[in-house]
């Protein structure tokens, strides 16, 4: 048997987003014999069991996949609480509006987003990214929101002035001033009179 085969199969199972059946593995590796593949799979099972790591390769519901050892699940669930929270699109949008349009009321944020933002604003307040600046002196005295010091820390900003503006981002791929200028006539033959004739003209 090809000595690399177990490693090849292992990499396929590792990168698959769901269990891989033996048939599928054979399909993916037409250059190998089905029996070879089966032998390699049992070898893999055996070698992972022997090494006593944190996970093993198992065949369930007709497919192969890697599974952590149930005995370790107490440790694994610990990192749910500390893994980085992905920012939802709605929090990101709301935060962006508050950052760029502060001081701003909830009604104004909702006007821009077109949806209710109470829940999102509350969670941004709880995360201390947004703070209440005061109350607006209009009927109903709505709260006015702005960004907090923690907001600056999360984004590594020195101050609010350091927030990039929309214009700055848009200007990046605009045609630079340079190339919009009228091109000046350049006549190399005249500019370099001492170098002799150019090879073509």
């Amino acid at each position, binding site marked *: 048997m090809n000595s690399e085969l177990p490693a090849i199969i292992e990499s396929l199972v590792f990168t698959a987003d769901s269990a891989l059946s033996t048939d599928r593995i054979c399909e993916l590796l037409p250059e190998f014999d089905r029996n070879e593949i089966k032998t390699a799979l049992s070898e893999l099972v055996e070698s992972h069991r022997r090494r006593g790591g944190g996970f093993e390769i198992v065949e369930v519901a007709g497919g192969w996949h890697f599974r*952590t050892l149930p005995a370790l699940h107490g440790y*694994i669930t610990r990192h749910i609480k500390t893994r980085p929270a992905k920012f939802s699109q709605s929090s990101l949008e709301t935060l*962006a509006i508050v950052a760029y349009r502060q001081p701003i009321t909830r009604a104004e944020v909702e006007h*821009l987003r077109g949806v209710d933002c109470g829940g999102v604003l509350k969670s941004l307040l709880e995360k201390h990214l947004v703070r209440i600046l005061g109350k607006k002196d209009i009927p109903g005295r709505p709260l006015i929101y702005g960004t*907090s010091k923690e907001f600056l820390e999360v984004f*590594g900003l020195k101050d609010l002035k350091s927030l990039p503006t929309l214009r700055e*981002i848009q200007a990046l791929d605009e045609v630079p001033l340079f190339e919009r200028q009228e091109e000046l006539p350049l006549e190399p033959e005249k500019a370099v009179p001492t170098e002799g004739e150019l*090879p073509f003209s």
Partner: protein
Amino acid sequence: MNTETYPHSEEKLPLLDGLHEQYNIHLDTFDGPMDLLLHLIRKNELDICAISIAVITRQYLAYIKLLKELNLEVAGEFLVMAATLLQIKSRQLLPQDEQEEPEPEEEDPRSELVRRLQEYQQYKEAGMLIGARALLGREVFLRTAAEPVLVAAQNTEGPLEVSLFELVDAFRALLQSIPEEQFHDVAPGDSLSIADCINEILSLLQERETVQFDELVRDELTRERIIVTFLALLELCRLKLIRIFQVDHHGPIWFVPAVAMSSAEV
């Protein structure tokens, strides 16, 4: 970036062939004038530190001329470099006064260019080394299957991971989806907006209890700056976010947050 397209016109091709023979300049994409210069130096088997400006300038100009004859756009940057080369060459042609001590700044006119070329070459090489690495998503892959034990639990508590660009981009996307007239910008304009100025003031008041008007305009004492700052203060005052006071006539104007920070934070 400038010569991405090969010429279409048939009658130009013989000319191109001739050049291939004589100069062996191929119409590859040169990533700017530095890239072209490095190419010419290598082609002529020259040492960067001892380049012959005459040779390089002639070939460089020939290349630009060729681009023009092929009706290819020559970017401004290439012309700037052409001017630089000609300037260096003319300085070399100036008679040297051998009696006089060479002035300290009278260094080799090539040296500035040589330094730029050397530095550029370093980054070009580093870029190739980086690009030759095994890349995630190209040669190297991660586990994509989610751990069943973890799938159930959604988490919103952990440390935040979001970049500044994503923030601006979210805002940009949002504004693009909103009809123009609904979006009210306080002061569009090229330089300073009232909104920026308000942000600046709010940011200062996060750190200190009192701020003086002069401090806001001190760094940039222009009419525009003063007016925009003043309007920003009026707006903040209208929103009852700050209180403004002045102790003496013509004395400094102070302002403080209307609500103490501690009580404002919920």
